[in-house]
Each structure stands twice: as structure tokens, then as C-alpha cells.
């Protein structure tokens, strides 16, 4: 993010073309309505499942005395993880001056907003008595990582929303008079969100300063949010969680999940919104390299996380690892390691695999694998307590997620997809002003489509 904006792009004819390209798909059309109503219907089915859980309590889930953190908490970790990519792309890469991230920065922000907002809701789904949520604030202990987690998730969500809104202010102003094809209420919203922006240099100066503060704040907050999430596990002595590298392990895993989520959205934007001029083959190649980079770092942490305890095979650790390597969870474990990490890493080495279509497929597989990876972190440890499991019905010894539970989880994912769809369809998904400024500063550089 430059510290100054050269406002001459506003007079540049290129701005008209860029704005009309990016604003063309914006608005409420038939396919959007169909898509949203299908999602709404699905959400209602899942809400009915949640109603059952509210009515009957957590007994309708597979959670029992031993496995009290199951799909919900895994899902929570997944959501927090995926949301982290906003920080990686906008802050870290953006502030280091990588210009190619400009068109995809907002996509990353949308993911950050949607996933961090839904993460909070996912936590509530794990509560048998959700009306007691305020108790966390009334009686919470500052010593508890759970309180830290609540604090950082809220902070990260706020920062992500602010960053999303701030970087969109000039676009809202540019869009004035250019979105006649959209419903009046949307035009009103744009008017509101433009905050009287007139492209005055002083306004740009303040805007850039605010964005800069946000970008800097978001880095430690994002580190905190996922490190604290990992501490929810790592501050216990349980095998599989009792690890000093859990913070960085979670963090790097988060970048893998987040990058693949960005790639999926990039593909959809490029193909559905016909924005291949802005999200180019080059971008996919770069994202492919980024995914490879974060994957290899994550692979390195996996190696440490599994190989070191497996070399020592301490009694309880051994029981846990054998369960993962050759036992009940072996199929899931090896599928996740191979499909979610090793095979994608090998494929991404080839340039032909870093093209949009193969990348799209790789990213989907990686994202799904990273969901299951979270399940593998949470459930096997819970199933192996230190004391023998006894005096409970057999069905309580192992964890079997129920349909209600799965439906509620699907509901949270649906909700995230809905938020993403609204933000992508009703607002410009590519920052018009940043692209226009860039193009007017380097008029001779033509993008490779």
C-alpha cells in the first residue's frame, strides 16, 4: 500500500473501462436470486436441526463424556484458520509491496470477514445452553485461553470488516452514477458507504493512513487469533495436543486452508464475472507458488509434530499416534496428508498445474482435506483419555457425529457461503481505484489474460 495516491487516474479514460468491467456483474439478477434462495432453503433445513438441538440439548449430537469436542470445535478451528488468509494477502504481501496481490486483496478480505464472523457462531453451536454465552463475559477468567480466544476473534472480525469497508470507500465514490442497473436500495447503500468521499487528496491521505493502521494491527491480531486457538489445545497435557509448536503449526495450516479458499473464489470471479482481464493466469501461477510455499512450511511443521513424538513413542503419545498411523483414524489421516498436502505440493511444482482449472480442483481438495485435518486434531485425542474409559455405554466410547450435528455444521458453512455471495455479488470484488491507479501509473504494461 503506497503512502500516497496519484489522483490523476481519475482523469484517465482507462478508469471508465475498468469501472464498467468490474461493476457489470454487480447487482441482483435472476441467477443470484436463485442461488441465494437455494442457500436460504438449505439454511432453514439446518436451522431446523439447530432447533432440535436447542430443544433437546447436546444429547442429539454424538458428543458425550469423553469426546465433548467433536465436529463443532473442529469446524470452529477450520473457520478461524481459513479467515487468516486476509492477513497474509492484504497485510503481509501487500505491505511488502507485491503489486500482484492488489486485484485479489479484496477477495481475501471477504473470506476473512465471512469466516471470522461465522467462527463466532460455530462456537455457539457447541454450547448446550447458548443463552449462557454472556456468562463468558460476566464470569470469564482472564487466565483462560477461552476468554483470550473470544477477545481476539471479535477483534479480528472487527478489523477485517473495517479493512474491507475502508478500502472500498473510493470504489463506492467511483461507482456513483455508474450503477444505474442496480436496485435503488443498493445505490443508497453505496452512497452511505462512500462516506462523502470526493477523491480529495486530503481524504486519500487520511484513508491511506487509516488503512495502514488496520493493516499493521491485523498482523499481530491474526497471529494471536490462531495461536490462541491452538493454545485451547496446547495448554493441556493430553497426547496429540501437548506440543510447544502448536501455535506455528496451526498458523501455517491456516495459510494452506486460506490460500486454497482464495484460489477457489478467484476462479469463480474470473469465470462467472468475466473478469479474466484482472484476475489473470499470472495470478493463478503466483497463488500456486504461494500455496506451495505455505504447504511446504506446513509440511515441515507436520514432520515435527508427528515424527518427533513417533520417534520417542511415550506410552500415551504412542497410543495416540498408532491410532492415527495404523488404527481407527489411519484412512482419514493418510488421505488428509496425501491429498491435502503431499500430492498438491508435488503437482504445484509443474507450471501446467498452476493454470486456473487445475488450481481450482487442487484448491477444492486441499480445502476439504484441511477441514478433515481439524477433525483429526480434535477427535482422536479426546477419544484417548489418560484414565481408562469405563462405566459408560459402549456407544460413548467412540465418537459418531449425528445427522443433526452434521446438518448444523453444513448450516454454518452455508452461512459463510451466503455472506461471501452477498459481498461478492453486490459490491465490486476487485478494487477499482487501486487497479486504475496502477494502470495509469504504468500505462504500457498490459496484463496477460
Amino acid at each position: 500500500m503506497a503512502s500516497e495516491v496519484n489522483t490523476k487516474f481519475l482523469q484517465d479514460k482507462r478508469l471508465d473501462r475498468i469501472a464498467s468491467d468490474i461493476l457489470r456483474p454487480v447487482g441482483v439478477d435472476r441467477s443470484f436470486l436463485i442461488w441465494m434462495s437455494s442457500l436460504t432453503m438449505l439454511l432453514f433445513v439446518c436451522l431446523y436441526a439447530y432447533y432440535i438441538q436447542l430443544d433437546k440439548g447436546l444429547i442429539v449430537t454424538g458428543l458425550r463424556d469423553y469426546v465433548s469436542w467433536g465436529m463443532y470445535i473442529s469446524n470452529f478451528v477450520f473457520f478461524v484458520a481459513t479467515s487468516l488468509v486476509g492477513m497474509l494477502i492484504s497485510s503481509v504481501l501487500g505491505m511488502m509491496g507485491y503489486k500482484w496481490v492488489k486485484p485479489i486483496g479484496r477477495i481475501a478480505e471477504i473470506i476473512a470477514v465471512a469466516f471470522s464472523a461465522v467462527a463466532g457462531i460455530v462456537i455457539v453451536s457447541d454450547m448446550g445452553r447458548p443463552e449462557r454465552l454472556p456468562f463468558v463475559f460476566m464470569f470469564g477468567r482472564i487466565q483462560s485461553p477461552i476468554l483470550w480466544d473470544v477477545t481476539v476473534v471479535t477483534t479480528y472480525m472487527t478489523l477485517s470488516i473495517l479493512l474491507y469497508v475502508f478500502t472500498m470507500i473510493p470504489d463506492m465514490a467511483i461507482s456513483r452514477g455508474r450503477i444505474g442497473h442496480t436496485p435503488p436500495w443498493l445505490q443508497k447503500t453505496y452512497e452511505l458507504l462512500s462516506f462523502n468521499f470526493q477523491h480529495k487528496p486530503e481524504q486519500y491521505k487520511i484513508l491511506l493512513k487509516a488503512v495502514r493502521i488496520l493493516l499493521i494491527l491485523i498482523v499481530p491480531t491474526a497471529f494471536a487469533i490462531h495461536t490462541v486457538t491452538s493454545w485451547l489445545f496446547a495448554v493441556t497435557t493430553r497426547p496429540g495436543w501437548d506440543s510447544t509448536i502448536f501455535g506455528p503449526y496451526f498458523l501455517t495450516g491456516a495459510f494452506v486452508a486460506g490460500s486454497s479458499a482464495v484460489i477457489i473464489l478467484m476462479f469463480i470471479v474470473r469465470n462467472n464475472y468475466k473478469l479474466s482481464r484482472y484476475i489473470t493466469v499470472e495470478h493463478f501461477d503466483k497463488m500456486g507458488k504461494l500455496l506451495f510455499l505455505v504447504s511446504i512450511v506446513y509440511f515441515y511443521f507436520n514432520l515435527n509434530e508427528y515424527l518427533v513424538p513417533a520417534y520417542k513413542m511415550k506410552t500415551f503419545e504412542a497410543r495416540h499416534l498408532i491410532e492415527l498411523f495404523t488404527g481407527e483414524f489411519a484412512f482419514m489421516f493418510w488421505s488428509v496428508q496425501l491429498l491435502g498436502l503431499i500430492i498438491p505440493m508435488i503437482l504445484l511444482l509443474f507450471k501446467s498445474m498452476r493454470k486456473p482449472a487445475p488450481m481450482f480442483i487442487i484448491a477444492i481438495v486441499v480445502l476439504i482435506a484441511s477441514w478433515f485435518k481439524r477433525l483429526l486434531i480434535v477427535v482422536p485425542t479426546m477419544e484417548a483419555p489418560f484414565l481408562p474409559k469405563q462405566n459408560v455405554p459402549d456407544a460413548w466410547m467412540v465418537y459418531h457425529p449425528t445427522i443433526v450435528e452434521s446438518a448444523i455444521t453444513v448450516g454454518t458453512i452455508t452461512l459463510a457461503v451466503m455472506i461471501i455471495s452477498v459481498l461478492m455479488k453486490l459490491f465490486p470484488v476487485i478494487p477499482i481505484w487501486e487497479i486504475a491507479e496502477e494502470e495509469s501509473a504504468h500505462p504500457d504494461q498490459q496484463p496477460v489474460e
Partner: protein
Amino acid sequence: MILKSIFFVLLNFIVAGLFAQTTPWDVPADRSAKLSTTAFTDQNRNTGRNLYQANCKSCHGDPGKNNVIKLVPPPPDPAATQLQQNTDGSLHFKISEGRGAMPSFKNILNSAEIWNIIAFLRTFNKDYQQQLAVKPTFGGEVFDKVELKLTADQTHTTIVAQLTGFKGSLVKPIAGLEVKLFAVRYFGNLMVDKPMDTNAEGKALFSCPKNLPGDASGNVSLVAQLSNEELFGLVKTESTLAIGLPTDRPPLNEPRALWNVVQKTPVWLLISYLASVLVVWGFIVVVLLKLRTISKLGE
């Protein structure tokens, strides 16, 4: 060879199963003839019901419903003849000692509590008529009531447990019975000195330990108890005497610690948490104010 040994192991199990089921329960004659010294009251029966719910129901089920847990041999339903045909004494013995899957309760429940359970169990037997033990006599006297009382001498070197019997207006010290003295600690009772017999004045004299920690003013909770519960039932007294070393040790939950309540958060943590939250949210407010400035500039 292997088959053969498997066969024998199986046979062993079967025989053991049959054996366990059919062996009669050996109850020593004197224990079987034992009777309660007091008549069962409604209060006994109520206490007994609560004790039963807490300790026995998980295996023996609800009396009369025959919903017992599946074990070999099965625990009998308390309303069934198998259990009711026992004498009071053998019920007392079996509950105290246990056998196989039936746990021994002698270290969990005291004798009086077991009698209360028996009082409750007998409510499921219409034909039951309670027989009482002959009133215990002592030195030719039959006492209505027996009492223990604890005192300490001036110098706190000796603790005195006074055993007294009452009969109408007659008050008499009881000699020659063993008394145990305990100090109440966090996780159970600590025996003080050794069991002592009462002297001719009915006094059991315990020498006071010099190093027994008490509370801030040296108070120690003491419990004295007659060793023989058969004579007069459970005779017990509790008193707090200032015989300990005054110890002003802060309670375990006093210091600031990670595991303590929120008011006792360690200072370093409190500062780090509040400082980070304040700094980040302070900047968020700054950023929001900038939004206002941008908006103002555009008017």
C-alpha cells in the same frame, strides 16, 4: 494341547460361575445373632433410604422392581426373600464385609448408618418384627444414655475425654472403655496419641502433640469416639480446642495464580491482556474517527 487348555480354562470359568452362585455366605454365628440396640424409627428409615439411593441402588435397583444390574451372581432385589430371610445381624455382616462384586462398606459407612439401611430394607418385608438387643449393662447399671465430653487442661499438655452414663437422675462415670481421639484434617481424620481406656473417673487422658498445626488462633477440631460401637451404639463427640500451634498460613487460594478466580489474575497477565486489548481497540477507535474526518472533508 492348546485346545485342551482352552477347554480347561472355559470349564474353570463355568465351574467358578456355578460355584460362586451356590456357595452359601458364611456368616459367623455371633455376627449373625447381632441386633440393633435401638428400635428403628421413621427417621432411621429415611436416612436409610437416602443412603441406599446413594450407595446401593446402582446395583440392587429399586426395591420390589427387580431392576438389578446384570452380574454373576446377581445382586438380589432387596424386597426378595433371598435378602429378607437374612437375620438383621447377617445383613449387617454382609453389607460390612461384602463378597465378590458386592463391595465391602465397612470403611464407607459406619455401623449406625448400616443399621439405618437395614431399617429401610426391612420396610419391604411385611412380616418383619424387629428384635432388640438387650440393653447394654455396665457395672451392673443399665444406662439410658452415654455421653463423651472433651476438655483440655490449662497447660494444653493433656486432653481429657470424659465418659458419663445417665440413667434417670443418676449420673455415673464409666470406667474401662477404650476411646479414640482424632484431629480433623483436610482429607480425613488424624489419630491423636493412641486409643486410651477410661480410668475410674471415666476419663481417658491423651497427651497433646506439641506440633499439631491449628488455625490462626491455634484451634483444632477434635473428634472423640468410643471404640466399641456394640455396647451403646455410636458414641461420639466433636469439639474445637485451642491446643494447636497457631498457624497463619494463607489459604491455598490466596495468591494470584493462573488457576485462581478472575480477581486473583496474575498481575503480569492482567497487564498484558488489558494493555493489548486497550492498544488495539484504541487504534480501532482512532480509525473510526478518521472515517468521520473523511466524511466531513467531503461535505
